[in-house]
């Protein structure tokens, strides 16, 4: 039975997607990734809609129709601090975003933000697929440690380096009196570069920003590496909000999982997760509040054991769920 699974060795980098696995899982993986890339591009395309029409949908800094708009939560905080005033639309935006975060968690990070798009593109160009691993290769010499799953309860918040950047951003904004992070925000720079290109072509309006912004973007995303995990203050805000989110969390079906059902040393789900979540070792994992609902783990699982529905038939037993993340 085991021979119907083929696993491949994950690469050293996090976004290794070229796992060889069940045909159907393969198809599913294609869909999740493709849908994500599509929604990300769709949100960027709004910028182009704003350039081609006078509908003013805005950019990811603020999206809206007419006088109804959502402001980026970090931007909303920054402008209220910079102007030392309470801005009604900024407050309602924050409330809406908190609400969305409670229901959908950090969904923005995997489905809307254009930053992972650049990562997808660069991971695509990293050469041929790795050698497939055989089942024999993941048969452990000694029995595996029993899995410790994450609990169903709200997660513990992990205060990491992103919160340092968040604090630094807000403090600097208070001192200099303008939303300073917006100047280097990779999302803003991406939108600005699109607008800059449009102005160059349509209005013959060249600007140094067309050179400078892409360079800064590349610096942030490629040189700093792991922007999302280490540095993004927006992600830090979303993590705070999603600490209370318990919907759409990845859950392992122990009957299907190769680890729990067959004792094989499969780590595909952990290796696929760019948030460093290990579904099987809650104690060493990022908290589940960091889950961006990207579905990469589910798609990487050769056994199709990971589901996101609340009552997926993966109820944990008392002992296994005793550990909270």
């Amino acid at each position: 039975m085991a021979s119907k699974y083929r696993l491949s060795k994950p690469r050293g980098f996090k976004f290794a997607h070229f796992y060889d696995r069940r045909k159907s899982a393969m198809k599913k993986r294609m869909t999740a990734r493709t849908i994500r890339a599509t929604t990300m591009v769709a949100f960027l395309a709004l910028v182009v809609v704003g350039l081609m029409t006078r509908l003013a949908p805005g950019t990811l800094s603020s999206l809206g129709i007419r006088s109804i708009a959502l402001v980026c939560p970090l931007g909303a905080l920054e402008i209220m601090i910079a102007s030392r005033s309470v801005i009604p639309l900024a407050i309602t935006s924050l409330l809406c975003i908190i609400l969305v975060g409670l229901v959908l968690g950090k969904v923005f990070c995997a489905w809307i933000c254009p930053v992972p798009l650049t990562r997808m593109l660069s991971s695509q160009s990293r050469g041929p697929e790795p050698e497939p691993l055989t089942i024999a290769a993941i048969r452990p010499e000694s029995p595996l440690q029993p899995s410790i799953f994450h609990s169903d309860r709200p997660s513990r918040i992990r205060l990491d380096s992103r919160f340092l950047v968040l604090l630094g951003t807000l403090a600097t904004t208070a001192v200099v009196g303008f939303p300073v992070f917006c100047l280097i925000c990779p999302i803003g720079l991406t939108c600005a570069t699109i607008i800059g290109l449009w102005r160059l072509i349509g209005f013959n309006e060249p600007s140094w920003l067309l050179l400078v912004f892409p360079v800064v973007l590349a610096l942030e995303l490629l040189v700093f590496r792991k922007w999302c995990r280490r540095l993004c203050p927006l992600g830090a805000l979303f993590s705070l909000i999603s600490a209370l989110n318990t919907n759409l969390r990845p859950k392992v079906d122990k009957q299907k999982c190769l680890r729990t059902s067959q004792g094989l040393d499969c780590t595909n789900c952990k290796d696929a997760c760019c948030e460093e979540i290990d579904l099987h070792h809650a104690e060493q994992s990022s908290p589940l509040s960091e889950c961006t609902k990207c579905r990469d783990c589910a798609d990487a699982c050769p056994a199709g054991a990971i589901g996101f529905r609340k009552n997926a038939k993966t109820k944990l037993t008392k002992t296994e769920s005793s550990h909270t993340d």
Partner: protein
Amino acid sequence: MDYRIGLNRRDFVSATGLVVGLVSLGAVVKLLPADVHLIRPPGGQDEDGFVALCTRCDRCRSICPTQAIAPARLEDGLLAVRSPKLDFRLGWCTFCGRCAEVCPTGALPSYKAECFEFAGLPDEVFCKTQLKLGVAVINRDRCIAWAGPSVCTICSTKCPYQAITLDEYGRPLVDLDLCNGCGVCENLCPSSRLLSYQGGLRRGIEVSALETKGL
């Protein structure tokens, strides 16, 4: 709330580096003298307040029916880059208030306006407000009427606010009280097309920003 510190040295170093970068960027932007005076869309005239509030979302630029709003370039200063500025070569401002309506942050607060039709530009509806974007300044070396001997009355007949009168020799003069910097005159001034290239692309009449409280 339940929390845990998850900070290793490498992450700490990267994050500190980024914050130091942010602080220096903020300091440089604040300390560098901004010598470019941008003309902001109506309502954005208090430069300090404006840059504190604008999130550079591009909504005002998109909605402007005359396309007078352009995104500021890097050349306009680090503080201004991506924010909206008026470019009267592209359009003029009718004070229609649409940009203020879509501005989500109040960087462009809404204002009272009384709108009227103007026979000189029958396709447009202009509005009277308390606002002043800037004032028109005549570049006498570039103005066709001032440079002579030709006659030109385009700006004086097209100004929706009747701010331009002609002197006894038929040369335009700007009434600083009536002019609100709408930019019609600059937009329509033909001098950069008709006069020789000497003097560059400057036009005979151009709107310049008022002294702002900003840097």
